[in-house]
């Protein structure tokens, strides 16, 4: 019975992985088909031509660069905001905490287009109020895309850092203060080192969330595009397999990152196991 169930589970898992991967394989495969349309079904021969066309596409490079710049800006804003929010939230309790928490996580649940539209309207109105509505900072553009993305990505940072704060011993800060450390030192030498793993993880998440973002960016952008919006507009307006070439490269990058992560994890697990074995041996030798 139990073995039967494990087998069914594995079968289902295998089918599920296939379901997730086959569309990606089809898409990547079409990058090498010598056909004007992106498809694999009538296979017209192998070609690298679409990669050449992709690299020659200046719009793609511009969009790629914009994506990176926006993502870095989002990390630079969302990480300090989210970390500060977690620290503030951690120090208050009761009704205010629940209200503040609600306001902080609400943008995660809000649809991206609502965030996009409200951001554009707010800055536009602010521009009119101060009488500078022609000024570019108040108009649509990648800077508004950045601010719109920060409004919900900061919540991810806050949640991760808040979780890490649960394992922090505030007594360490008391001790540092008693021993004459100043406030800056308490933050820099005691609290932040404890939070670094969460901060690093949240920075990575913020970066990739920003690259991925479509809805907020579409509503807030002006003429400049990001990579996701570029793919979208290409798909919409008659596509060539150069998008498949791009997809192939991005999937390859994902696979390399995943493989590196997995190998690193296994190495760590092995070191851990060796250490434990050694500790056991040492214990036995003591007896």
């Amino acid at each position, binding site marked *: 019975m139990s073995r039967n*169930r*494990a087998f069914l*589970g*594995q079968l*289902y*898992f295998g089918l599920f992985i296939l379901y*997730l991967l086959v*569309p*990606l394989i*089809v*898409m990547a495969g*079409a990058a090498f088909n010598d056909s004007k*349309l*992106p*498809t*694999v*079904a009538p296979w017209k021969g192998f070609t690298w031509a679409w990669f050449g066309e992709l690299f020659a596409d200046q719009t793609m490079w511009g969009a790629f660069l914009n994506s990176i710049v926006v993502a870095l800006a989002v990390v630079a804003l969302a990480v*300090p*905001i989210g970390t500060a929010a977690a*620290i503030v939230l951690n*120090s208050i309790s009761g009704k205010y905490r629940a209200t*503040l928490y609600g*306001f*902080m*996580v*609400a*943008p995660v*649940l*809000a649809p991206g*287009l*609502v965030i996009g*539209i*409200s951001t554009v*309207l*707010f800055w*536009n*109105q602010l521009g009119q109020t101060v009488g500078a509505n022609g000024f570019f900072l108040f108009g649509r553009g990648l800077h508004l895309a950045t601010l719109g993305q*920060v409004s919900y990505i900061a*919540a991810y940072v806050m*949640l991760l850092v808040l979780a890490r704060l649960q394992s922090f011993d*505030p007594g360490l800060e008391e001790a540092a*203060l008693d021993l004459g450390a100043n*406030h800056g030192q308490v933050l820099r030498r005691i609290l932040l080192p404890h939070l670094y793993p969460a901060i690093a993880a949240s920075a990575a998440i913020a970066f990739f969330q920003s*690259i*991925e973002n479509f*809805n907020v960016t*579409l509503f807030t952008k002006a003429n400049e595009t990001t*990579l*996701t919006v570029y*793919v*979208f507009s290409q*798909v*919409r307006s008659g*596509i060539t397999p150069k*998008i498949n070439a791009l*997809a192939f490269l*991005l999937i390859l990058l*994902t696979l390399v990152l*995943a493989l590196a992560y997995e190998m690193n*994890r296994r190495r760590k697990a092995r070191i851990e196991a060796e250490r434990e074995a050694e500790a056991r041996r040492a214990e036995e030798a003591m007896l």
Partner: protein
Amino acid sequence: MEDLIRRYGTGLTAVFCLLVAFWILVLVILPNFSMLFESFFPYLPVAELGGPKDVFTLQNYEKILANPIETNWFGIPISIPVHISTFVDTVFFSALVTFMTLILAYPLAYFLAKVASPRSIPTLLLLLFIPMWVSEALRAFAWYIILTFNGPLNALLKGLGIIDQGIRWQNGVFTSYDAIVIVLTYCYVLFMLFPIYTAITSLDTNQIEAAEDLGSPWWRTHWRVVIPHAKPGIASGCVMVFMLSAGSLLVPTVVGSTKANWFPQTIYTWFNDALDWNTGAAYSMIFLLVCIIFVILAMRLFKVKLSDIAK
């Protein structure tokens, strides 16, 4: 608050509070107020701003009631405004997507949490994560390729002799929303999987064994033991998938047929093509309101708190 000042001093505390205030006020609350405010004013050329026409009005909201079309729901012909029809379709098919992802994800979440060997879990999770790192635009595009008339799916089915004529999948077989439902399910199924997986992991396996020892059939064990325990995870997954589906603009535009309109597309048309930001604001207010109602309903239905959902 005094605690913060004692630990980090007035200066640093002020910096923390300023950052939080900037986020909550400037990035979250004020933009939403701005949207609410603008939605009650007519769209005017710049010259007429502040003029006699620039007054409080409900006309932006009334636009959703314009242009009735003939349609039928479950065989009953009725006449409803076109945007209301789009809206109802969006909510209905998003609920369908939510249901399908739940059906697909629950068995897998249970397998990962309770059946698979713990040593292999990190590798299995990584395998599942890989497709999630590929951007949504590309995942929708992958299905666009599969579903096109001269695409691999039709070729495969013809090759196997199941069909002799290609099927226009994007126009739909059952409803014109078929392709959208398929692709949204594909894109968001993992948002259902991970919360449920996390919830089931915290269930003590002894409870399942006790139920089995007492003679409970497998379906009753799930119904009475596992599912009640997984409720926060299910609620969280449902809310996430519903919000993402109903708010998706990319998938319906890439794979949808011309007959299948999604509400975000309507909003985008007002906002970007008609350049009528005020009506766009009114429509997104309506949309936001329904989303909030959905979250509250889900919280009531599953008896969970907001902090359980947003994880």
